[in-house]
């Protein structure tokens, strides 16, 4: 862990009279996996969308690699990628064609070599020439992960990358991500509703509620602070408190 690679300061997003993200500040260190935890509607996905430049913040700043995202979008996004169970890729293209398009959008060199490498790493040889519309949800998750990893990002945003997948695939994805993160030294912002997964994956966790950060630290620190047995109990406690309010 050294200097922060992502610096978010006082980030706020309002949609008319609804505040989705409220004065949120955090850093992601180089080589760190930061977990973003919170109930539905807590502001996790909106935060990631702002970090990807897809939503303009109402106020606050986002710096990556020391550069302001608002002013250096292209330079920053070349070194960033994302994956989510909820995103899709053009259905009428094959897996390889989709990866080729992404490779060109990120100005990659030796495109075919990169594709072959990522296909091998994620064991996608059997679906390389398959139409994307014919993929199962597990295969689709691997494709979106492949498109994110292939560009060799320094920062990766993973928004519930394992949601609705069977345990075997979840396990494979987690093992791959951990190994890849360790060897490539990339920084990851990770959201999930699976508390055990969050504990396993993250070096540090931020708990969001109603757009605010309500807890921050390692999973042990958070569990201790709230006097619960595990992260799941903390999540339930905070989520129920939030509903009562």
């Amino acid at each position: 862990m050294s200097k922060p690679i992502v610096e978010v300061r006082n980030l706020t997003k309002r949609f008319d009279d609804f505040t989705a993200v409220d004065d949120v500040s955090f850093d992601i260190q180089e080589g760190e996996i930061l977990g973003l935890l919170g109930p539905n509607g807590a502001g996790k996905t909106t935060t990631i969308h702002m970090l990807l430049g897809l939503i303009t913040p109402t106020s606050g700043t986002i710096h990556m690699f020391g550069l302001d995202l608002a002013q250096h979008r292209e330079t920053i996004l070349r070194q960033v990628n994302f994956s989510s169970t909820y995103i899709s890729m053009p259905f009428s293209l094959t897996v390889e064609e989709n990866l080729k398009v992404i490779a060109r959008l990120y100005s990659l060199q030796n495109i075919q070599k990169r594709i072959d490498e990522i296909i091998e790493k994620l064991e996608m040889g059997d679906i390389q020439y398959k139409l994307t519309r014919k993929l199962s949800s597990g295969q689709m998750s691997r494709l979106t992960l492949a498109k994110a990893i292939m560009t060799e990002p320094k920062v990766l945003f993973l928004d519930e990358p394992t949601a609705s997948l069977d345990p075997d695939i979840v396990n494979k994805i987690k093992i791959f991500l951990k190994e890849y993160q360790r060897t490539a030294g990339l920084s990851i912002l990770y959201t999930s509703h699976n508390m055990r997964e969050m504990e396993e994956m993250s070096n540090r966790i931020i708990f969001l509620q109603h757009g605010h950060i309500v807890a921050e630290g390692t999973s042990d620190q958070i569990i201790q602070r709230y006097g619960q047995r595990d992260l799941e109990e903390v999540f339930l406690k905070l989520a129920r408190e939030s509903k009562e309010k």
Partner: protein
Amino acid sequence: MNLGRIGGLLSRHLYLYKRSFARLLEIFYWPFLDLVVWGFITMYLKEAGVSLHGAVAFFLGALILWDVLFRAQQGIAVSFLEEMWARNLMNLFASPLTVGEYLVSTMIMSMLKVIAVGSLMMVFAWVFYSYDMLKIGISLFPFILNLVVSGWIIGVLTTSIIMRFGQQAEVLAWGMVFLFQPISCVFYPLEVLPPILQSIAWMVPPAHIFEGMRTVLVDGAMPVDHILWATGLNLFFLVIIVGWFYHTFNVCKDKGMLVRVGE
């Protein structure tokens, strides 16, 4: 502008045409059908002895040029719809691709469609009706170029409306251009319009092109004034509409609509 990224997005659309019969129909079948119907109408008018100088040239020439405008507009608007249907906008705009590169790529796509459809229609018209579009002469080049730019303008306008209002506005991708058809004077001279519409039509670049085409067919002279007017108006509207697209894009980013469009 990064040519690699523009080419990347272009390749995404070309892959679609490689294996989609429905998309190929859009290029070959519908323009052919248009030509057959209008060809028979002009033959009927000729046989009925309707006194209309150069009826075949008027109608078939106008139809081919109208299709240039129509396909240029569709090339832009349908490309956006393809991204919306595939829920691919997030992948594109979370990448280093810029809005300008996106627009240029769809403009090139629309140009490719125009070349395919236009060439095909010219060949069909020549084979079935012995109509040689190239007889319009050197003016044909600025006519087509201006109509392509007009198509881009209407296409970018349509796209920005779809981006702002989502799926409920997607029908505009096919219908928007027809709003401009009456005042573009495609199949009739501008003077048949009521005076108020004539004033509006003079502000519409395609009206100058279709008037210019009729001038060439009647007098054989190059309609320099119409070409200059069309070019000037097109440049003016193109700057305005591209600025409008950037504005709409930023509004959508502000309202969080870019990540929800198509839902």
